[in-house]
């Protein structure tokens, strides 16, 4: 009796869990087929299969410029935020580092800060130093948002790192730079790469700061998409959404593979 009751309870819980999981997954999956609709409607059943909206997006100078802007800003953000975050992580994980907890809390603050507050502050600041509406300004702004992700990702990897290995290398005569390059770097590289992936995704997905800080010359994909969503909804926006989903999934998949490798090497 008791067993059967618990079994029924578990079944109900399992059903609830799957409903929640479907709620999470369904909206993301549901919009992908809409990008293949042969008619300009965003509903099911599809009128027919067509790649016309993909052709429209890839032949549109606006969307292609937005893609170019997103790639420029994303890659530059990775290039700046990865070394900054990695170096800081190397310091903060060590017990000898004074006030590490405090610094960590302070440096992670941009992750919790409302984006419009960051966006407004940076807009006013960048205007004052003459960098509003420029690639440089947008890249600096995205670096502010992305660096904490690198920091978190690399500290997570380093928490399992044995600094005794570096001491061993030094005691065997390796100079600090050689010990770093030959011992430390290969072991923490997957963590650094994961951080770089998350830094890129942060910039790739970001819309609020881009709305405030970027000018018409730096319209990124999310910004172009936000404008499209407010003006007219058509399946070409679903094409861009699909591309963004696919790229995010591929990058996160890459991040997971790297992290698993990091876990194995440690």
């Amino acid at each position, binding site marked *: 009796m008791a067993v059967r009751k*618990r079994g029924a*309870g578990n079944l109900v819980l*399992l059903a609830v*869990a799957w409903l929640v*999981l*479907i*709620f*999470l997954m369904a*909206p*993301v999956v549901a*919009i992908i087929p*809409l990008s293949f609709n042969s008619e300009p409607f*965003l*509903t099911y059943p599809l009128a027919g299969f067509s790649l016309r909206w993909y052709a429209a997006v890839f032949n549109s100078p606006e969307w292609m410029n937005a893609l170019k802007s997103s790639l420029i800003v994303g890659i530059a953000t990775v290039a700046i935020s990865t070394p*900054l*975050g990695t*170096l*800081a992580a190397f*310091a*903060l*994980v*060590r*017990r*000898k580092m*004074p006030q590490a*907890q405090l610094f*960590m*809390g302070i440096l992670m*603050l*941009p992750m*919790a*800060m*409302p984006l*419009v*507050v960051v966006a*407004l502050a*940076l807009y*006013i*600041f960048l205007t004052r130093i003459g960098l509003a509406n420029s690639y440089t300004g947008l890249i600096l702004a995205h*670096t*502010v948002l992305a660096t904490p992700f690198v*920091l978190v990702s690399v500290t997570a990897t380093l*928490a*399992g790192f044995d600094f005794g290995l*570096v*001491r061993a290398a030094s005691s065997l005569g390796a100079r600090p730079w050689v010990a770093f390059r030959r011992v430390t770097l290969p072991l923490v590289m997957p963590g650094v790469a994961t951080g770089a992936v998350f830094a890129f*995704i942060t910039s*790739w997905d970001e*819309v609020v700061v881009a*709305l*405030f800080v970027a000018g018409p010359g730096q319209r990124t994909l*999310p910004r172009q*998409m936000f404008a499209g*969503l*407010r003006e007219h*909804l058509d399946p070409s926006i679903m094409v861009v*959404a699909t591309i963004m*989903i696919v790229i995010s*999934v591929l990058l*996160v998949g890459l991040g997971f593979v790297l992290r698993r490798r990091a876990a194995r090497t440690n």
Partner: protein
Amino acid sequence: MATPAPFLSARGKLVLLALPMLLFMLLFFFIPVGSLLVRAVQDPELGAIAPNLQRELRAWDGQGTPPDSVVLALRDDLAAAQKDRRAAIVAKRAAEADPKLRPAIMDAAKASLADPQLSVQAVLNLDPVWRDAACWTRLRDVFAPFTDRYLLSALDLKRDRDTQEIVKVAPDQAIFLATLQRTLGVSLAVTLICLLLAYPLAYVVVRQGPVMQALMLTFVMLPFWTSILVRSAAWLVLLQTHGVVNETLMSLSIISEPLKLVYSRSGTILAMVHIQLPFTFLPIYSVMKSVPDSYVRAAQSLGAKPFYAFRRIYLPQTLPGVAAGCLLTFILCLGYYITPALLGGPADQLLSYYVAYYLNQEVNWSMASAVALMLLVVTLVIYTIYARFVPVLRQVEG
């Protein structure tokens, strides 16, 4: 072999490693965000448009009628401003202090541009406002370089025009406290719904085998790493009047007319729950993974009923995860802008909306900063609680 004395101590070297990021964040995050404090009480806009007028007005003591130098500065600066079509900005701002000033300023700007040699008397004769000493005093206040007007406005307060005492604004202008309340209310509702969904989900997921667990986690993580904009867009498409959800419900004869799901509070909250759920789930899940089942089994073998054992033994052990997940979700909800902008109606906008509104539509940076400060203070209070609750760093020896 003696090693040379190190140039820097070990601690010094560590600080040096962290220095680039600390300096970068100081320069591009803490200084800009900190300057919002100054910006919210600062009013450089009018001073930039009419610098001489501001200097002369501030040099005048505000008693009686202003000296001729003030009137001449008004004439010259308004003429110059009118040339770049910026006199209207001065007129609009002055109208906040006294509506009569708006037409008077516009007329003076046009007349001064037409005739740059206008005499003091001619300017004073343009409008009765200029012969009223009280109006000049109000104009002087409008040109004050520092003001508490915006901070007061953000709290639905103002200074009385005559007595200068702090009073409440008219009920039809009181929007910010109501918006703050709505922001807190929506954030709380989203957090509670997320908790109700995430807790049982995490409870089930930790009890699955490795393969099933990986599959279920994929269902959580894939949407989690899809951009917020894309997910908001997905909900916008699905919830439209003739969107997928309404069409499905109608074809199943559950409803006869489409529900109003977009541009509504329910649509906003639905999409926010969808976006925030993984943030609530992950901390609860990771805590549950470390809670052993054996205590609950021990309690039950000692005679505790399943629900009693759950409530007294299991639940307390998972509370750190619940606190972390809920605080994180609540903090992030406070700053929502994109999702309410796309899925909410005018009455569903949160505080962030007003920051964007004052920056982009009104071009009033000081007011935008004042609203941003309100949002910042609320967020910092909860972040401080969060940072005390949740260990953010695991250190290693070396």
